[in-house]
């Protein structure tokens, strides 16, 4: 029952967010939600210049036990595309893992979608290498500390049009 409720919630979110496209929603086993968001994405720098992608494909998996247990920050959300995210909370060695930090039990999938968007667009990032819950890529920490002009990549919220916030992207 909880999966049906969360699936309805996710579909309602997708209807509200014009830039979000649902690619897969699977309720067998763990709840699995694959979606694409048209958004700026930090990718591995070339010659010191940050590459910025135009879209990201997220992969959200939600286990029933996370209703009462705290998931690891990297547990629920991964990135299927691009393959080379350059982000303090994305670990290159564990492809696609995105760390959302400390999540309380019962954090709803809808909230994880929003957290993932704000994290990847650099609106909410953790640059403290000493924090045991947050940083997966030290070199990206250094990079964004030295290049604050990229933080954030956009100020547009998930429900807003990117063009409406173009002055900052």
């Amino acid at each position, binding site marked *: 029952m909880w999966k049906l409720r969360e699936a309805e919630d996710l579909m309602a979110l997708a209807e509200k967010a014009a830039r979000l496209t649902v690619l897969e929603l699977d309720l*067998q*086993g*763990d709840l699995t939600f694959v979606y694409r968001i048209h958004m700026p994405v930090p990718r591995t720098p070339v010659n010191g210049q940050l590459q910025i992608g135009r879209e990201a494909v997220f*992969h959200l*998996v939600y*286990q*029933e*036990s996370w*209703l*009462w*247990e*705290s*998931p*690891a*920050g*990297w*547990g629920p959300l*991964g990135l*299927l595309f691009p*393959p080379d995210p350059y982000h303090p909370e994305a*670990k290159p*060695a*564990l*492809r*696609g*893992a995105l*760390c959302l930090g*400390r*999540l*309380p*039990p*019962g954090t709803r999938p809808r909230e994880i979608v929003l957290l993932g968007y704000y994290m990847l667009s650099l609106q909410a990032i953790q640059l403290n290498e000493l924090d*045991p*819950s*947050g*940083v*997966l890529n030290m070199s990206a920490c250094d990079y964004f500390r030295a290049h604050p002009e990229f933080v954030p990549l956009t100020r547009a919220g998930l429900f807003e049009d990117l063009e409406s916030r173009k002055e900052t992207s």
Partner: protein
Amino acid sequence: MGSGHDLGKNCCLWQAEPQPAGTSDDFVPLKGLGPAPADILRSLVVVVIGLGAVGARLFVQLARLGIGTLVGIDPDDYGPESWQTQPARRWTDAGASKARRQGEIAHDANPGTTVLTFHAFAQDVPLWVFRAADVVVAAGDNLELMVWAGVSAAALGKPLLQGAVFGEQWLALVRKYPLEHPAAACPACALGTREWSLLRERHGCDPQTARVQGIEPTRTLPPVCSLAASLLAGELLRAVLPAASQGTDAEELDYCLLTHRIWQTKYARNWQCRCPHERWRQIDVAGPPSETTLEMLLMDATYDIKPRPLVAPNGPTSLVSPTVQIRGETPFASFTICSHCGMEVAVRRFAKVGDSVGQCGCGETLRAIPMATRSVIPSHEIRHCLGIPLSELGVPAGGAIGVATEDLSTYYFIGQPPLVCDFRKSRPLPVKPAGVV
């Protein structure tokens, strides 16, 4: 000092030793325990989670009471300041494993007790250990651990006790959750929004150390910790001895050493509790994992739980139904991606994130990755795993496989676990009928 057998994987065992020949029976009946308590206590298996200021004191008390098998679990090592509050030696014990040290102390106090210790998080200890327990005791106030222990104790039908302290108030408390009764409250039943939000505190980002150990040392006065341990030992005796009064309500008893006030509270079951309060059907499978397959387990599940053929979407009668969920004690990794060459490799085995799951063609060690691990076997993968021996799917001897349908979860314990366990309930699996996929 008795030396334990190091069994690897941070596990250490001290076998019960027979009484030396020529010595008289030195086990005198203690007052107030009723008739023949020694036999009852000798037959018990008690699991103590947390061997710190409260748990360590309890552990040795239980050994002196003559509990037959003691299992102690603690992931921590002693810090330089631990000796002030915990039964550890100054200087020489700093850096030592709490589990190993307390195992030595308990077995030294009573060599007639079998002592097994795990230097690990309770959530990572094999399920058969908890299944073998008659009582599970959690010593500490780690909420996340208590919620997990409550879910597990309810699933296995074990009574759960908790002992904890509040240092500032000189308060020792003990809680009893009689989860062998399906309608009893669990530790999560009384949690409010604030407590749930606190549960996020103990996770790190490195998959190898996902559970972050406590960094704040216990600073509660030793007498308060000793009192909590004694209250806990008393509650355990009340739970296991037939002479003691038994109730089916969860209860809390608080004693304040500053004011000598006592509070006693009953906990009602919260029917809106987030935890499942689910009792598993438990079945022992006599054959080892190398001779058992998922197909054999599914046949048992389908015929015993839902006596009707299950029809797969593509037509033929099948054991695989979208409503059947299969899980192990660790997550299931469908595939992984080589961190060196980027090749996607099918894995299909139970493994924790970061565990080695084979070797890539390029020579790099393959590791389970978060994106490809699930708490249950994805339905499209079940078909591929049906005929594979469970040992090849990463299930160790004594390991558990859960098969859940809409209304019932069955856990199969596969083969003889490497250590203490009771297999009196073993029964063979049904014979596979011809023609079943």
